[in-house]
């Protein structure tokens, strides 16, 4: 009951924090796509490099987020952004690389050899083959990687509140430091709901972006 009263009387605050949270994740994952998808495409050309890149990306993802934020404080204070949204966005960008790069790489490699041979044989250059055949066919799997990244990082971003990035994590951190169960519960539920809704929306987007010929 108290929780509902709390929510009702703090709607503007909740709205602002939610929007902050969404903005942080969207910017970070968006940038991650801009780096991750081209990297994923590039490493399909060379298996050795692919192995190295994927290995590095999977190590990065094992670093606990609070530790990563900690590492970035001294590094980024040199340019005056040790705390706040910059380290948060950079950390989430790094975490998103593995699902996006790996899914892109796997999807393109899994395009059937027959299609590749048909594309070569009828006279497509490698670029045309990527653009017209391999990437369109890989979109569903790449989107699945983006979805994974978004859902995971909505949670990571809640921790970013501790370095001053803002977002719904603020409610959780205040709830803990002020021993206020209302803020704590509202914050936790809000983050979870946001993750669920984001996953649903992105699934719908994934279906829309899947080429019609592949819908089963």
């Amino acid at each position, binding site marked *: 009951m108290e929780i509902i009263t709390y929510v009702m009387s703090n709607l503007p605050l909740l709205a602002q924090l939610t929007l902050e949270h969404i903005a942080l994740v969207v910017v970070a994952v968006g940038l991650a796509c801009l780096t991750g998808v081209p990297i994923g495409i590039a490493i399909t050309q060379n298996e050795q490099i692919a192995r190295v890149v994927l290995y590095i990306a999977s190590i990065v993802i094992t670093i606990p987020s609070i530790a990563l934020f900690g590492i970035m404080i001294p590094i980024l204070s040199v340019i005056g952004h040790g705390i706040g949204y910059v380290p948060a966005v950079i950390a989430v960008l790094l975490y998103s690389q593995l699902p996006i790069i790996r899914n892109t790489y796997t999807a393109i490699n899994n395009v059937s050899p027959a299609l590749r041979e048909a594309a070569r044989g*009828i*006279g497509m250059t490698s670029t045309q083959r990527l653009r017209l055949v391999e990437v369109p066919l890989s979109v569903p799997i790449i989107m699945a990687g983006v979805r994974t990244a978004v859902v995971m990082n909505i949670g990571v971003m809640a921790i970013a509140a501790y370095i001053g990035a803002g977002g719904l994590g603020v409610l959780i951190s205040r709830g803990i430091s002020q021993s206020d169960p209302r803020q704590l519960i509202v914050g936790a539920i809000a983050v979870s709901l946001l993750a669920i809704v984001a996953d649903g929306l992105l699934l719908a987007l994934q279906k829309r972006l899947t080429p019609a*010929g592949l819908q089963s």
Partner: protein
Amino acid sequence: MINIENLTKVFETGQDVVTAADHITMQVPEGEICVLLGPSGCGKTTTLKMVNRIVTPTSGRVLINGEDTTQQDTVTLRRNIGYVIQQIGLFPNMTIEENISIVPKLIGWGKSRYLKRASELLEMVAMDPAIFLKRYPNELSGGQQQRIGVIRALAADPPVMLMDEPFGAIDPINREVIQDEFLKLQRLLKKTIMFVSHDIDEAVKMASRIAIFREGRLVQYDTPDDLLSHPKNDFVKGFVGTDRALKRLQLVTVAEVLETEVTVVQMNDSLSQALVKMDGAGYERAIILVDDARRPIGYVTRSVAQANQGNCSKHYSNLRSVVRLEDNLRTVASKMFTHDATWLPCVNSEGILEGFVTQRGITRHLGATYKAVQ
């Protein structure tokens, strides 16, 4: 016209050196289908793929209409060659229209031109453009997909086509239909085609010339009839099969062995007249009975004519079967076996008697080429 000169491919993997194709030299005249035939690993597919450089030759060259393909840019070369593969390879993310139009688009045709071409091609293979242009490959049956694969290769009207076991993935019933359709199309379009197959029957049916490969070498390159009647060595003999005489039958039509001079009797002729006619024509056992329009209705046997009196109309046996001018001798032989007949009358499309075919006539025709060699 395709000219292949000393085309060789050697694969070196670590210790092993494998010669997949060894100095292949052959010519495919314009407008003909050459079938590359042989067992697995014989080099037929490697040779085919060296023509459009999917496989890079180790040495030798390929000339298409006099131009050396090693000097050409690979991508331009391939856009000028139609390529059909066994797994079909239609792009699942594109509509049928987009699939067919892909090469014309790549070489810069205008939209209305390539759309018109796509409809034209679909009609050539009896698929309604209104229905099929907007469909996706996964909505089509295997046979339909393969037809689209073939017309995709024809879209930019290339002079040359390379086909790698194109009908291999289709069930045997549909395969026959598609082969017949393709031959009909080829009669119209007269492309120069190299076609890889491992099936001797398909080769005999489709080829103007067959090239038999073994372990990387071209063993024999002849017309189907020459290959079947004069196999060069034991390997070729074994490959074409011990029933090669029967296979040759399908290459000959009734028109080539027809006896056109035929004496007949009519309903009102008497049996004694029938005997006289039979003796006069030298027919040992029977004579054909026709109606007023010269349509065969039956036959009168010598034994019946000798043992009875009266008109033919009362003493004839029913026709067992007839053959047409365009039937091939394999069909004829089959009918002869089915109906236990040593001869069959031949009729045209109106049912009027054109002549007759005998077993002896067939064997004489097959034997004629053997004699020619000696």
